[in-house]
């Protein structure tokens, strides 16, 4: 998965990439305008503040006069109140823009993810998808909402401070402005350095997390290998690296930030010397000098801000590209326009037009190759499964048993040939139509956070409580609920983590059976489950297979024997097919496989 590692990103700024954010910004243009304009006002108010000090010097202190000081105080207070009011407006607008834009981007990605095919999921790690939806959008929205208005604030502040200074004394202003290029150059230089170091810190940080993860999950192995000291050594190497990179970042900052402050003092010193001279000649008022000094001390932080924000925005382009990349992914499987027209699409199905499904599946001259594969795993394959029949697929782990299931469920489509459901090519119907007719039980069942009841109801959303419990009873999932403190209302934890594999499987049986599907797809568990649960699962399997068209990736002998047809898979291909008896008589691959499984199961019975 190395391709998904955080890649070095140093593409130049490309405004076209950012244009693609416009649709997400559009709904919030009012708030964006508010945030922008309040920032302009706030910057202007900040520029105005030094005038109060200057006014006090020139009108009260120097002439030794106190009349009008009340009005002065009142104006000052009023301006502070006005500033606070605009500040509230700005913060609120920015939060609304940030959060709502983030929300919309997340939604767009999530919705798109629901349409993408399995070929995408099979080649993309979950962590990668997750960070596309969560962290990338957060960063982009933050940059647009806060970065841009900060940039505006800084720019307005810098520009107008210079305007004011030029009006007050253009020569002095010119001297101060000479320092600006230095600050910009410095910022650019240090920002580039920081970018590299920070990337290193992030990388080592994730290595440290990984090391903790391994140290903890592999603790048993470490102990038996007496590898503690070696692990400690490796780990100390990592923390040393972390120390090194972090201090490097700090060192850059330790030079960078004080330097900006230093330039402020240099500017102030120049102003004091030059301005003081003007004061001596009575060409400048003392108050005006104090304004110049305040500006000189305060202007370089926003100058640096401009450069830093621009650097941030440029590096944020990578996040935009990643989000757009996800949104640009084409679903490998999609319904034809005329099919969509009639049956609706994923989020707006037209169920009134859906034909009921009997469950008669036909593979007609099907050849198939995985999108990332090099050779055909199925060639001119024909198979007819009348409604209500069971097909068992057997073979070693990793032999490619799920291919047929993937095709039958239209998780993948045949490369050539057709698959007919009740005599009609399934591409003539909508994806959702087929999927709503499938009951699926996985080997490692996936449950969602929530209660047992919610998880079973996932099979049919409008099922009543009574129906949920009825389905649970049929497959003994009620025993799982009974064991828990809150019965059906018990939380199963994230991914069902609070339940054992066997328990999760029973719940997923109930979920599938509640859906009343025409077709069942069952991937039997291989992991060892305690004898009692094993028996319950066995019963549940029998219940499900009765009267349903079913594909079973089978591991249990009884399931295999009961099947109407057995397909034996090896190395991705179907090498034998027939009934149990036929295959046994052949004494081929199936015979070996079966006898081994038979031994294992019988041995287990001895110990039961």
């Amino acid at each position, binding site marked *: 998965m190395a391709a998904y590692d955080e890649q070095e990103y140093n593409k130049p700024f490309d405004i076209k990439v950012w244009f693609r954010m416009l649709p997400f910004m559009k709904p919030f243009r009012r708030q964006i305008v508010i945030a922008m304009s309040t920032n302009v006002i706030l910057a202007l108010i900040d520029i105005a503040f030094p005038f109060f000090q200057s006014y006090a010097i020139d009108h009260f202190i120097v002439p030794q006069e106190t009349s009008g000081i009340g009005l002065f105080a009142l104006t000052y207070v009023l301006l*502070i109140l006005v500033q606070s009011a605009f500040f509230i407006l700005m913060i609120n607008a920015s939060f609304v823009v940030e959060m709502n834009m983030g929300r919309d981007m997340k939604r767009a990605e999530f919705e798109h993810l629901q349409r993408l095919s399995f070929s995408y999921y099979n080649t993309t790690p979950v962590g990668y998808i997750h960070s596309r939806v969560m962290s990338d959008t957060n960063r982009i929205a933050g940059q647009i909402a806060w970065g841009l208005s900060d940039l505006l604030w800084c720019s307005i502040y810098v520009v107008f401070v210079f305007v004011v200074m030029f009006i007050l004394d253009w020569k002095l202003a010119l001297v101060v402005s000479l320092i600006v290029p230095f600050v910009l150059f410095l910022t650019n230089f240090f920002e580039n350095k920081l970018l590299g170091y920070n990337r290193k810190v992030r990388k080592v940080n994730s290595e440290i997390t990984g090391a903790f993860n391994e140290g903890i999950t592999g603790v048993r192995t470490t102990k038996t*290998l007496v590898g503690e000291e070696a692990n400690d050594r490796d780990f100390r190497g990592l923390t040393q690296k972390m120390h090194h990179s972090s201090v490097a970042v700090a060192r850059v900052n330790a030079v960078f930030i004080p330097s900006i402050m230093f330039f402020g003092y240099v500017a102030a010193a120049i102003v004091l010397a030059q301005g003081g001279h003007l004061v001596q000649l009575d060409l400048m008022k003392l108050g005006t000098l104090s304004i110049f000094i305040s500006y000189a001390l305060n202007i370089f932080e926003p100058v640096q801000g401009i450069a830093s924000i621009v650097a941030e925005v440029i590096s944020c382009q990578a996040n935009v590209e990643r989000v757009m990349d996800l949104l640009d992914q084409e679903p490998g499987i999609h319904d034809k326009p005329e099919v969509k027209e009639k049956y609706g699409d994923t989020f707006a199905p037209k169920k009134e037009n859906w034909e009921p499904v009997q469950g008669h599946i036909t593979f007609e001259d099907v050849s198939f190759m995985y999108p990332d594969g090099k050779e055909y795993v199925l060639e001119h394959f024909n198979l007819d499964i009348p409604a209500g029949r069971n097909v068992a697929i057997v073979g070693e782990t990793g032999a490619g048993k799920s291919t047929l299931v993937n095709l039958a469920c239209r998780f993948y489509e045949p490369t050539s040939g057709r698959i007919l459901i009740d005599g009609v090519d399934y591409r003539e119907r909508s994806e959702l139509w087929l999927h709503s007719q499938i009951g699926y039980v996985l080997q490692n069942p996936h449950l969602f956070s929530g209660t047992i009841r919610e998880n079973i109801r996932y099979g049919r959303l409008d099922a009543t409580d009574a129906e949920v419990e009825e389905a649970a009873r049929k497959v003994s999932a009620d025993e799982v609920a009974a064991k828990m403190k809150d019965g059906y209302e018990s939380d199963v934890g994230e991914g069902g983590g609070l339940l054992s594999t066997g328990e999760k499987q029973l719940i997923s049986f109930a979920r599938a059976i509640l859906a009343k599907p025409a077709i069942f797809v069952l991937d039997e568990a291989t992991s060892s489950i305690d004898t009692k649960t094993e028996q319950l699962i066995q019963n549940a399997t029998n219940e499900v297979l009765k009267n349903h068209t079913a594909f079973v990736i089978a591991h249990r002998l009884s399931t295999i024997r009961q099947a109407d047809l057995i397909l034996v898979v090896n190395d991705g291909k179907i090498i034998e097919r027939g009934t149990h008896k036929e295959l046994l008589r052949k004494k081929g691959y199936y015979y070996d496989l079966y006898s081994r499984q038979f031994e294992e199961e019988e041995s287990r019975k001895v110990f039961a």
Partner: protein
Amino acid sequence: MRQPLFLGKGKYMKKSSKWSLMRRFTKGSIGYFIGAVLASLGVTVLNSFTPQVFRYTIDTVLGENESALPGFVNAWIERIGGVSFLQGHLWWIAAAIVVIALLAWLMNYLWRLCTASAGENFAKNIRNQLFYHVQRLPMRWHDQNKTGDIIQRCTSDVEVIRNFSVQQLLEVFRISFMVVVSFTMMYSMNQKLAIIVLLFVPLIVAYTMIFYGKIRHRYQEADEAEGELSAVVQENATGVRVVRAFGRESFELAKFDEKNTRFSDLWILAGRISAWFWSCGDIITGLQIVTVIVIGAYIAARGNMTVGEFVAFATYNGNLVWPIRRLGRIFSEMSKAGVSFERVQYILDGEEEKDDVAVLANVPEKIDIAFSHVNFSYDEEHPVLKDVTFTVKEGQTIGVLGGTGSGKSTVMQLLERLYEIKEGEITIGGISANALPKSWIRANVGLVLQEPFLFSRTIRENIASGRPDATEEEIREAARIACVDDAIMEFADGYDTLVGERGVTLSGGQRQRIAIARMVLQNTPIMIFDDSLSAVDAETDIKIRQALRQFRGNTTMIIISHRVTTLMGADEIYVMHHGRIREHGTHEELIAREGIYRQIYEIQMSQDDRRFLQEEGKEEK
């Protein structure tokens, strides 16, 4: 050939108070801490000079007031030509400001560098200690605690503590200096006004503390909402098969929408409340500034304060206001760091495995193993082993057969002393296992599990993880014995192939064989195969064991398996059932008996089809 003595260092941690822990974490950081404190004092003092220069310039150089600078500075100015000289050479004053700024730059640099070094060193210490400790906590502790939770404590909580103790704790010092220095300067210029300023300090600190105290649960709520949203995305992506197979895309989207909206709404709400609080804080600080300027101007207008004093006063006050607000925030965040500290402390308080004997008195002559009347339970409730007694002579091959949950793996874990027994005794070479250092036992007992754990490193590093100093040739030799050398060489990167998430996915058989190679390299006199040949075909199985015998003649091998063919060559076979040893003897002896072993043997060895046909018959009835 005996293993060299391998002894733990005997560093054990006792339950520790916060302060003693703190001391351990700050080891090597103290110098930096002191440096940071001193440098921040330097920055503050230097920064307090500049307003005095402005004041002197305005009052004495440009105005006609007496110098208020300390005597030695005045003396120095006199030496270069006095005030009149400066009046004609204002650049000298500018130079003074630049010199002070340069010194301040240096102090600032030192302060930042020391702060970072102290912090990073601190974080490094905590991480190292945690890692060291976690690896040495007993298995029982690991069984009782959830992996995810421990990792959370080792990473996020450490980060919180680091941020607090470095940035915030040192910031408290800096701000305190600032308050003291600024106040002293202000007090020296105008006592009344200085006291008015001081009165605002507790008000601002208290306001900020209350604000952050109040708003924190809002942010927490918003954080939790983000966690929930994140979980929905995670589960949707991992459960994509289920979502699609049930056609639940719309339902998922609705669920996502709800969490997504809640997440953004909560943040907007938190933002709205914060905006009000911030603004009110701004108003309070603004009022403070207005007060200083207006009263200051009034006092100055009455002739009780010079212009320069007024300007300097306003500058000191301006320097004070923002850090004080930060102080309030830091105080309110202390509790957060406290919670994280306790969460980390919980791990460090877990007692490390320890040996009653750190030094091995004398190496056992023959490494025979004996269990006598061992009872064991993981949870004190459900007994897993009941009265287990057996002996294994050095060099013997022992087979163990048993069903799921029969206790066979537990026996092996006890032999490794991964768990402590309360009843019965285990002896190795006639010496009680409790009288032998754990590290010695583990260095002498090798264990390969059915689903072995491999580290996400290269294959080479994995094989060598029991003996990091092994040579290339030794590593390959071990791999050859485990019959995995050929398979490894087929990878593009050979022995440098990365294993795990970021590398290749190995088959079960390859994993098992790499783990066997790892044990071979560890060269333990006792080797346990806990069902670890299950994914290897029968032929390879035999080849591996023959190679092992050749490699190390007197190795004691304990082989756990459910396949009779794997077990039948053993010197002694034990059949375990429900925590007890039910049968034992050689293959022939066990076959002669009407027991479990015999039954299993018959099932697995009968060559004809009758068994299948019987089954069919049953069905047809």
